[in-house]
């Protein structure tokens, strides 16, 4: 029963809340639909935290997603022993980079009074869950080798079964506790998405590449 709640109900609740809550917030509170930069208040520690964090977590997250969307291609990619080793190494390095980054960011928020004064309860909550998630991820990568491969045969079938609406949690139920917590925590973070600064993921200004340098707005007449 608890397994159904955690591995089937929680994902559906989290995803639907993230989608509908995110859309609601975008249309009803666009003003706050971003992160709140504290670089003006403190920049030295921020550099050593935020740059490793983003450059570490974004590729790792994309790898998780790509394996779900294209499991066959992912399997082909990991087919060779050398390739698997290389990918595993890169993944581990990026994971550790993200871990170092978020620890620095966490400490920074704790020790700097200026930054603390612009930190909300939700910021702390999110930061704690992210810290847990990345720590678990790094722990799993280091202790249960070849995660990029067994992920393909455990979590991917489970997540795909959720995606296609015939949920089946069986492939993941026998995994070690750390891995299961990592999975549940992922959906807790998705649940938090519309209520935190995490929404800034969807504000990446990719259009900057193509827009004209200068913008002129005319009043409609």
């Amino acid at each position, binding site marked *: 029963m608890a397994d159904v709640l955690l591995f089937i109900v929680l994902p559906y609740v989290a995803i639907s809340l993230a989608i509908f809550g995110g859309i609601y917030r975008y249309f009803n509170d666009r003003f*706050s639909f971003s992160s709140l930069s504290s670089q003006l*208040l403190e920049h030295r520690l921020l550099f050593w935290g*935020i740059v490793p964090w983003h450059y570490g977590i974004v590729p790792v997250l994309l790898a998780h997603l790509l394996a779900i969307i294209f499991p066959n291609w992912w399997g082909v990619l990991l087919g060779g022993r050398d390739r698997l080793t290389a990918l595993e190494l890169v993944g581990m390095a990026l994971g550790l980079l993200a871990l170092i980054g978020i620890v620095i960011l966490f400490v920074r928020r704790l020790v700097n009074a200026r930054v603390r004064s612009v930190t909300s309860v*939700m910021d702390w909550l999110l930061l704690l869950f992210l810290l847990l998630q990345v720590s678990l991820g790094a722990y799993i990568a280091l202790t249960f080798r070849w995660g990029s491969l067994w992920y393909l045969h455990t979590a991917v079938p489970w997540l795909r079964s959720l995606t296609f609406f015939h949920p089946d949690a069986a492939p993941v139920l026998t995994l070690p506790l750390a891995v299961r917590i990592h999975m549940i925590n992922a959906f807790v973070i998705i649940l938090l998405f519309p209520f935190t600064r995490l929404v800034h993921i969807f504000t990446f200004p990719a*259009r900057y590449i193509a827009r004209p340098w*200068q913008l002129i707005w005319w*009043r409609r007449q």
Partner: protein
Amino acid sequence: MKIRAQTAMVFHLDKCIGCHTCSIACKNIWTDRHGTEYMWWNNVETKPGTGYPTLWEDQGKYQGGWERRDKSVGLRLHSRGEGLANIFYNPSLPSLDDYYEPWSYRYSELTNAPAGDDQPVARPISMITGKEMSIEAGPNWDDDLGGSRIYAAGDFNLAVLTDEERQQLFLLERLVFFHLPRICNHCLNPGCVAACPTGAIYKRGEDGIVLVSQEKCRAWRMCVSGCPYKKVYFNWKTGKSEKCILCYPRQETCQAPACFHSCVGRIRYLGTLLYDADGIEQCASVPDHELVEAQRGLILDPSDPQICQKAQDDGIHESIIEAARKSPVYRFVKEWRLALPLHPEARTIPMLYYVPPLLPVAATMEEGKYELGSDLFVDQATGRLPLRYFAALFAAGNEEPVRAVYRKLLAVRLLRRRETVGDIPEEVVQRILNESGSTSQEAEAIYRMTSLATFAERHVIPPFMREMAIEATTDPFERKESAGFGLSRPPKRGW
């Protein structure tokens, strides 16, 4: 050619007394909110001095404005790709300490202090953390050359002077300074607009006022660095950039902006300029020494019937062209060529112009004879801030336009002295007028606009024709019993 209208400004520095009334007027209206305490959309600096934020003119540090590249210009801060790669951490952002940490005092410690032998003291508390702090800098820390060994000596523009000239400037009996009021320049080629990855900053088509959309801003902070004048500020509380809005809500109801309205020395002039929008890139791309002239060339004559016709074809209303004809800014910048842009080498084509200060003219009176001394422009004893300093400030290092301005300002002054005191021979005045390329009629007009102009002559606010806006065509009862601002809500982050 594509003609657009721009609300532009002239600050006459000879008249600025450095009273900061403009800064206070602005602060009281616009930046008296949590998160904006440290912002001074209008500030008045003492020159020589390092300014606010400290050393803002040092583009090597802050990467503001544009650089000349091949035959065009490129943003100094980043290419598009670099901009996106640096989005998590902007390496050229000034920190709060480059401005100052805003503070208040715990006044209750004064009134609640127990009786004792000592005067009670109110401790300063940070307006960010609410904790006690020690004050180490403020928005006018170096006002009137205070701490000049550190601040004035650090002025970025002094780099163009020789060691000897710099040492002479700081001899006690030679100390000299002037005030430089600064607001957003509402540039034609703004660096902040180009630097914004989201596209939240824009230039209003009708009057060229540069604004930050608070709904669109996503706190990437690139605009703060992209502006070479450091006139975009980051609100650390709301996570939005804010800047001078040239009091557009006041202008739309035909009032002068607050800083203009409150100016005690009446140094400020506001008016419309017509310019050729197709010429912007070309104008921004010329070599340094041609920048001032190129910028003047961009401005069009609103009395020329052909220009008027083209302006109307391009959608500029007749009443705005009429305002452009009366514009005091056009007189100062284009007709009299007295007003110069601040740091044109940033290539943003700023639309705020300065009449440089004619200071201090140390003439002597001997035996009833008015003696100007030797050549004002080479003699350090009379013109104590070297011309090269002003050239670095107002002409991208080209002394020629600055020298021309000073010749004309001096001619006006001598003409008036001849008329009011009468101790200068007519020939001398005529000779100096000729040398400056002016006439007595023009000098008289300059004198009038400088000293006698009325409020309405100084601020020719173009009609905004809000009645033509889309709101006027909607149901007037639509917003009845609502808050009055549509869906506007307090600028608060709930998460």
